[in-house]
């Protein structure tokens, strides 16, 4: 793609109609308009504004090919503060992903000792000290809401930082690009090897590289299933061929996706497949930090030699293309903000290094907000980038995000670990006993959310003359209270028979379930006692 000159369109003085020979510029009502991409940070703000005004685009011949073939990205090695930060994030995220299932967490003899476990078979979700039951799935929904809000927060503050550093696609692409570099050498060596005919040396290198790809991919797929079962047991079962078919299928699918998405599709996933860049575009505003080429400082480009002979004619950019060479998505940041830019800031590292070598100030490419770009271009004072983070929108996002988190932690902290649901028998609703008393039957479900068996007391509240018995006591053991041991971490179904003397009216009452331990957790559930006699 030819380098376009952003200053040409924006700084072109209004020309008279008829004078226009440049097909990319239309002159309407004395104003020059263009369809060409223009940097948003141009020196003349009106020009950028006018470019969105409705006008007929110039007639032009379509390119011969509507499909743009992918040119393989061979990004060059670079070092600098952002690269080091990217290394750090990569190690942390990969360590979390691969390592988390192996963290142990003692929950006593009745519960798994894996710190993070999604136990689908038993319908439990363990996360360190938190255990979530299926009926509490709203906590997971809350977690997802927090994740979404977190992305909003990050996006409005630092643009596509998620894309640039922490997104799995980015992390694994980065990892695979390091593998490329390790096996085939840096940018130039890789371009050369790609162009070389397939010989034994290239074949060997390719085989070696794809083997490493496969190992990483398999390890990634394998780590995924560890979250769903006890990790050490699963590893043993997996290699012994005794794991569930779902485990093998999942590993196979994830190996395949990691291999193709990380090894081959890479930046195409970000540019063509992922919806997030599009959503993010709507979330960023002129106060969001993004990686920007400061074209008012860099343009027009010229080599060091040319700039030396005519210093006032050329900008700071020496057109060394280092920013393009290091880009993991293969874009030219100097064309302005674009969907292909994941704001990984590696071009900042590359440019800063070049600027230091030729003795010009750093930050020709830098994190900046559009607001600051305009100010800086007009020669006004700007704020340091970190100050751009503190503004009402990010603060509001942060407060919402934080309060949801606190609310969930609070709810988790005070939630009851016992539960009682009552299902009355509806057919028949009541039973007349031979002595004239009336019996109602109920199915009680006692829930014990602690990971130890607990004795629980079921008591009648209301119905002063009634007694009850449960399936294990029989009628001889009828009393106002019954005691039942509920196994650890389970729901126990108990049949309860409540019997009331002749003449009792239909009445509401409730069952109270109390744990007989130091916690004395208690829960009450309403029920109805039906009799042939309907109370007033």
């Amino acid at each position, binding site marked *: 793609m030819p380098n376009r000159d952003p200053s040409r369109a924006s700084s072109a003085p209004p020309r008279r109609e008829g004078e226009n020979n440049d097909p990319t510029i239309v002159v309407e009502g004395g104003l020059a308009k263009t369809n060409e991409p223009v940097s948003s940070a141009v020196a003349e703000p009106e020009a950028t504004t006018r470019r969105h005004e409705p006008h007929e685009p110039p007639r032009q011949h379509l390119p011969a090919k509507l499909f743009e073939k992918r040119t393989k990205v061979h990004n060059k090695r670079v070092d600098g503060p952002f690269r080091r930060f990217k290394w750090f994030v990569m190690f942390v995220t990969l360590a979390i992903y691969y390592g988390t299932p192996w963290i142990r967490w003692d929950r006593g003899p009745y519960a798994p000792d894996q710190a993070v476990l999604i136990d689908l078979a038993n319908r439990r979700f363990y996360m360190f000290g938190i255990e979530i039951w299926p009926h509490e799935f709203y906590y997971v929904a809350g977690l997802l809401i927090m994740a979404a809000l977190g992305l909003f927060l990050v996006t409005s503050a630092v643009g596509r930082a998620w894309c640039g550093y922490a997104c799995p696609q980015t992390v694994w692409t980065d990892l695979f690009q390091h593998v490329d570099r390790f096996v085939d050498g840096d940018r130039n060596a890789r371009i050369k090897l790609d162009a070389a005919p397939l010989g034994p040396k290239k074949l060997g290198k390719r085989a070696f590289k794809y083997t490493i790809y496969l190992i990483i991919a398999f390890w990634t797929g394998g780590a995924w299933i560890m979250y769903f079962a006890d990790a050490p047991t699963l590893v043993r079962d997996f290699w012994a061929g005794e794991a569930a078919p779902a485990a093998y299928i999942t590993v196979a699918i994830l190996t395949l996706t990691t291999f193709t998405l990380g090894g081959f599709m890479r930046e195409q996933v970000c540019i063509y497949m992922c919806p997030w860049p599009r959503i993010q575009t709507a979330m960023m505003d002129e106060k969001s930090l993004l990686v920007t080429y400061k074209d008012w400082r860099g343009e027009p480009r010229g080599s060091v030699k040319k700039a030396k002979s005519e210093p006032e004619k050329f900008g700071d950019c020496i057109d060394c293309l280092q920013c393009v060479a290091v880009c993991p998505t293969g874009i030219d940041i100097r064309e302005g903000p674009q969907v292909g830019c994941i704001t990984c800031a590696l071009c900042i590292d590359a440019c800063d290094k070049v600027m230091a070598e030729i003795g010009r100030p750093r930050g020709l490419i830098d994190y900046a907000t559009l607001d600051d770009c305009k100010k800086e271009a007009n020669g006004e004072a700007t704020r340091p980038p970190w100050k751009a983070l503190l503004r009402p929108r990010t603060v509001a996002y942060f407060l919402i995000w934080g309060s949801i988190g606190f609310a969930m932690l609070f709810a988790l902290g005070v939630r009851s670990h016992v539960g009682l649901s009552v299902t009355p028998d509806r057919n028949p609703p009541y*039973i007349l006993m031979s002595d004239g008393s009336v*019996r109602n039957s109920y199915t009680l479900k006692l829930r014990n959310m602690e990971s130890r068996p607990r004795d629980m007391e079921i008591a009648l509240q209301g119905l002063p003359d009634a007694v009850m018995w449960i399936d294990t006591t029989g*009628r001889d053991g009828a009393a106002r209270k019954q005691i039942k041991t509920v196994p650890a971490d389970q729901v126990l179904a108990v049949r309860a028979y409540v019997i009331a003397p002749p003449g009792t009216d239909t009445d509401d009452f409730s069952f109270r379930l109390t744990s007989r331990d130091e916690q004395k957790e208690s829960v009450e559930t309403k029920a109805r006692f039906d009799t042939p006699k309907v109370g007033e």
Partner: protein
Amino acid sequence: MVNKRIDGPTGTETVGHEWDGIEELDTPMPRWWLWTLYLTIVWGIVYVILYPAWPLVDKATEGMLGWSSRGELAKEMSVVDQGRVTMREELSRIPIERLPENSKMFTQAVAGGRSAFQVHCSQCHGSGAAGSQTLGYPNLNDDDWLWGGDIKAIEYTLINGIRAPGVEKTRASIMPPFDGVFEPVQLEALVNHVLSLSGRGSRNALGAQTFQDNCSVCHGTGGEGKRELGAPRLNDAIWLYGSSREQLRNQILKPKMGRMPHWGDRLDPVTIKMLSAYVWSLGGGEEFVEVAADSAVKVDAEP
């Protein structure tokens, strides 16, 4: 057809039509799409050969694999049956009176009995086993048993039925019809006396005398009933055929007597065991007493 030409920018042939300057490209199908189409055709042919496909008059072509959905169902059912074999075997070995002590087997038996009950028993006794007073089907949830409410007695009733014709060991008894035996005054007195047994009618000498002479042999002097004869208790709150004076009068003059089929020939012993456990578990089941005082249990002990 006439104006076919190669379109410059795309290099594709047009279909030859033109509408107000708009032309349509004859873009070929993507190759992967075409190959998918061919693949589905091959798949279709293979499927027709291997599986039932063409509908004929009374059935479809069979296919080389011999697969059928009925066969599949039979296979799945047999797998389920296989899974139950151990449970059923174990259940068949446990003596019925020991079953309630074995809580795991008892739970299994009750669950199996519940579904068997819905198939075989709910037609008369109702899906909640509550019976029907108007039709005279007893409620099985309560603690009033005509012929005995321990688990073994229930099993005996299930096997042999009640007043089942042609069954030797069936539970049988007859309440004689007293139509034309009593004077109206005497009948009213008797009805009053029967009601008084459960504390509702007025006690009177004539009624007591009539009851003593005609009814006490089976129903007992105090109306406590006699299970070996299936004679109902008259001194309790439960009335199988209704407790109004009219209903009592009818029952004395033209008594209704319930019947129940014997299931010993129709159901296997394990299913009957499970049904007994279910009925016993409904809330009115009585403890089985090993050495029973009355002869009814001795009869029960035989099968």
